[in-house]
């Protein structure tokens, strides 16, 4: 005995149910309208994803530009020139030089009196504020 299964408009036997399901599996899962809605949804998601990527790229570009400008500004050398600090006496001379935020210099020395030439002592004391390396100190005498 076989029991008949009712499908709207179709009466069939249970053993044919598998064939019926296999046949339905090949049918389009959604109407054209539904399919279009899916495509539209995907398109919106794609647009949002694109905007997100664009915004991320813009933020990254701004940050990179800021870092580049900061690095460029930081990499520029600073030259500080101080001329004619006060020196009271040539025999026992001394002066202090302050380079704000960089270093403090002290110049001390003595030049014993002599007739035509003499030997002078010169001491330069350098105290740095920031950590530095590759220090080069040059002392120049102009006669």
């Amino acid at each position, binding site marked *: 005995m076989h029991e008949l299964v009712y499908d709207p408009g179709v009466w069939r036997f249970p053993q044919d149910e598998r064939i019926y399901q296999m046949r339905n599996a090949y049918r389009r899962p959604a109407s054209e309208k539904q399919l279009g809605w899916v495509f539209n949804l995907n398109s919106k998601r794609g647009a949002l994803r694109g905007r997100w990527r664009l915004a991320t790229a813009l933020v990254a570009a701004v940050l990179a530009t800021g870092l580049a400008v900061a690095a460029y500004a930081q990499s520029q050398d600073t030259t500080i020139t101080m001329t004619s600090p006060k020196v009271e006496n040539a025999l026992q001379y001394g002066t202090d030089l302050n380079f704000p935020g960089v270093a403090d210099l002290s110049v001390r020395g003595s030049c014993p009196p002599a007739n*035509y030439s003499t030997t002078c002592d010169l001491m330069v004391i350098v105290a740095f504020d920031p*950590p530095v390396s590759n220090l080069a*100190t040059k002392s*120049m005498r102009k*006669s």
Partner: protein
Amino acid sequence: MAVGSGLNPGPKMQVAEGEDSSGLKYATVYPTFVAAGATWVFDFVVLNAPTVNGTAQLSIMLDIQASNTGFIGHGYDLQATVQLPAI
């Protein structure tokens, strides 16, 4: 110009003397490393400094070049001129 350096602390350093095209005599000291916050003392002896009426006539030009140890690094060029007064 003779350079007798007193350095605290005292790692080795290179000292060079020379004279540029304009006749300026100079001595250059190259410390290999400067610790943060360190104080450096350089002693120089200037031989045969010219005198006028027994007073030395010196114009001492200092040029200190340094760069910090940061990630990017920044160079400093500190220049100063000390003129001994003539009597």
